[in-house]
């Protein structure tokens, strides 16, 4: 499968060769580049729906299920219709028919038995592929079969796409594009809530068949033009990469189509420029690199983004726990002297015993609070909040208690359990929520804690 496209014997292309490829002046190269770009676009589109329906490997099952159709079509055409066996449209029709039978079987197995999607796909894939090899060995014994085999269907031959292939890919891409636009709402519903769409009276099975028929079309033309592995990757990778950048289906579909076509274009161009780079493999690798980049740096669900927001939340929770602990201790200290709560210094030991945290953690939190200007003074034994720290501590404690009281009065949760439950919500209370709580509970100051707060001095941590 050495690429036949590179027109220089050198390892690096000359400027003319570069321009030649980039401007699509060579008609063979142009055909390959345009076809893979368009195919990437079409499979990026349908791939999104497959991914969201957790059926990404359908392309895999389908592309294997096409094999018997190719052999059977050959037999039917040569034995019964007296046609020439290598008639492309006939072979493709055969592939499409068994492909659709395979897809329908997957759906039937899933819907009528306890076998899950993945096993159903595995069964259809292996059994149809086995049937395909059986039929192909029979075909090889039949008269009229010539050596240049039907097997090229399985592996594809990206470097030598014909005009007919290119036309077919464009036609299929147009159909896929049109259907995705027209049936966008229906597919969206199908992907996100199958049960709901059924209850709304949508023909769910019919829509499923249409979607999978589109996948079949893309797979069949792609299989023939660019090969099995590339078409499987095209249906999965761009969609999975696009998912990291957005939570909006429209954006995701557009992005996935763009990523698919960029990988197709870049891969085919590289393969045309440099020697010994098979186009199919390069396209798959380009798409995989885009996927890796998106996985880490994607703006909606990327790993870095998620780690960052997790880190921020952790910091925020730590800060709020520390400040509330200090405030609660201050309250207790002032109560002993029958004063109103004030910003008095808190002994480090008391703070350490207030929650179940390690000395290291407390020191880390104190350092963080100091950095955020919430702490006025730290010496060996005592900690005192700054002006802004005290205000913040009062606000946090108040939010916590408002929510606790709300839980007790409106959600019937026992006072002894309320501290834990409030903890999971208080860190994400919005100002609007707080205002609503104030109105509902008719409280403006800092209410007293509705439950007993154990103090280290009086018998151990809470």
């Amino acid at each position: 499968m050495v690429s036949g496209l590179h027109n220089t014997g050198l390892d690096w292309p000359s400027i003319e060769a570069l321009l030649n490829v980039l401007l699509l002046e060579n008609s063979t190269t142009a055909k390959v580049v345009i076809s893979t770009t368009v195919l990437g676009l079409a499979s990026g589109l349908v791939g999104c729906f497959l991914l969201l329906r957790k059926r990404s490997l359908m392309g895999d099952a389908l592309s294997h299920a096409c094999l018997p159709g190719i052999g059977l079509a050959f037999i039917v055409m040569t034995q019964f219709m007296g046609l020439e066996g290598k008639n492309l449209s006939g072979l493709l029709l055969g592939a499409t028919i068994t492909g659709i039978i395979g897809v329908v079987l997957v759906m039937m197995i899933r819907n009528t038995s306890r076998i899950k999607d993945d096993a159903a796909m595995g069964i259809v894939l292996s059994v149809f592929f086995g049937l395909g090899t059986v039929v192909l060995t029979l075909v090889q014994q039949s008269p009229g079969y010539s050596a240049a085999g039907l097997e090229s269907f399985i592996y594809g031959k990206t470097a030598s796409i014909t005009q007919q292939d290119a036309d077919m890919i464009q036609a299929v891409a147009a159909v896929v594009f049109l259907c995705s636009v027209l049936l966008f709402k229906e597919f969206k519903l199908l992907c996100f809530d199958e049960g709901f769409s059924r209850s709304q009276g949508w023909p769910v099975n019919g829509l499923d068949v249409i979607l999978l028929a589109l996948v079949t079309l893309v797979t069949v033309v792609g299989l023939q033009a660019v090969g099995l592995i590339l078409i499987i990757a095209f249906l999965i990778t761009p969609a999975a990469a696009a998912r990291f950048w957005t939570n909006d289906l429209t954006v995701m579909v557009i992005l996935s189509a763009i990523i698919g076509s960029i990988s197709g274009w870049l891969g085919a161009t590289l393969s045309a420029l440099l020697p010994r780079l098979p186009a199919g493999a390069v396209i798959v690798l380009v798409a995989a690199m885009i996927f890796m980049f998106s996985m880490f740096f994607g703006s909606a669900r990327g790993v870095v983004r998620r780690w960052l927001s997790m880190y921020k939340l952790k910091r925020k929770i730590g800060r709020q726990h520390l400040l509330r602990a200090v405030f609660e201790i201050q309250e207790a200290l002032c109560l002993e002297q029958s004063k109103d709560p004030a910003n008095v210094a808190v002994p480090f030991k008391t703070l350490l015993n207030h929650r179940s945290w390690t000395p290291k953690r407390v020191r880390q939190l104190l350092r963080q609070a100091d950095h955020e200007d919430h702490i006025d003074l730290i010496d060996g034994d005592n900690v005192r909040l700054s002006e802004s720290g005290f205000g913040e501590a009062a606000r946090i404690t108040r939010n916590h208690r408002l929510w606790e009281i709300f839980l007790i009065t409106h959600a019937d949760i026992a006072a002894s359990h309320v501290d834990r439950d409030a903890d999971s919500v208080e860190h994400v209370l919005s100002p609007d929520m707080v205002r609503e709580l104030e109105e509902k509970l008719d409280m403006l100051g800092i209410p007293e804690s509705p439950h007993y707060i154990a103090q280290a001095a009086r018998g151990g941590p809470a």
Partner: protein
Amino acid sequence: MNWIVDDTWIVIIGALTAIACALPGCFLVLRGMSMMGDAISHAVLPGLAIAFLVTGTRASFTMFIGAAVVGVLTAVFTQWITNLGKVDRGASMGIVFTTLFALGLLLIVQAADYVDLDPGCVLYGNIEWTTFDVSFEFNWGSTLVFVPRAAIILGSVALLNLCITVFFFKELKISAFDPELATTQGINAQLMHYLLMTQVAITTVAAFEVVGSIIVIAMLVTPAATAHLLTDRLHWMLVISAIIGASAAGIGHVLAIVVPPLIGFESTTTSGMMAVTTGLLFIVAWLFAPNYGWLSRILSRKDVENPFSGPLPTD
């Protein structure tokens, strides 16, 4: 039908493959990872290529090691993308195996000037040829018995899988059904996952090098799914799937000899026919299985329907 010793050996080898595949296959089906066999059989290409480029020989042992390592890596990368990127497992599996395959293809083509390594030839061993490769012979009574290398390899893999499944039955079972529970019971569910994946990788690689990838993929999934329709007990599922796989191997070879002459051809491939036979057996179970078959479902639905089948009440 002209049955010779070779045919017996082919059936035996097919049955050994079926048993070796059925044991890890059941766990794959239960864990919802049935496509793993197919993924690994594509993904091992770079392992084969690298082993070949490093050692410069087509010795099957180094190739086997290379392929098995990449096979396990496929599982590791899939798990990694699934956990880290929160991607659907099927999708991450697809991304991993297509990428690895492309990488392998690239390596082979880049080295094409120096080496002769045909991916088609590497990927498809052929069960019909296994009997030519004899590893040793012995006298059994008055007859000389030639034992094919394939029978030895697949017999050892089947034995290995049997040992692992028996020794770790409890651990494999609990971590397949409830990984969290397994963890609370002090079983390392992650380790069990990778043990299973290693088992699948070794089985897939050993078997497809010897008998071809079609048989392996079919035997991993289809008999296990068939057995899943027939029983609710895991140990029965394992036994039944091994029996179904082995019978499919036997029936498949007979069909491969018998069917083509009936429709005017000479012969066809045994491995393809074995895969088709597993499919036929699955269809039988799908329609007629006692509790989970289509027919019994329809019948039991009738029972439930009857009490409610009168006219709807009107206001």
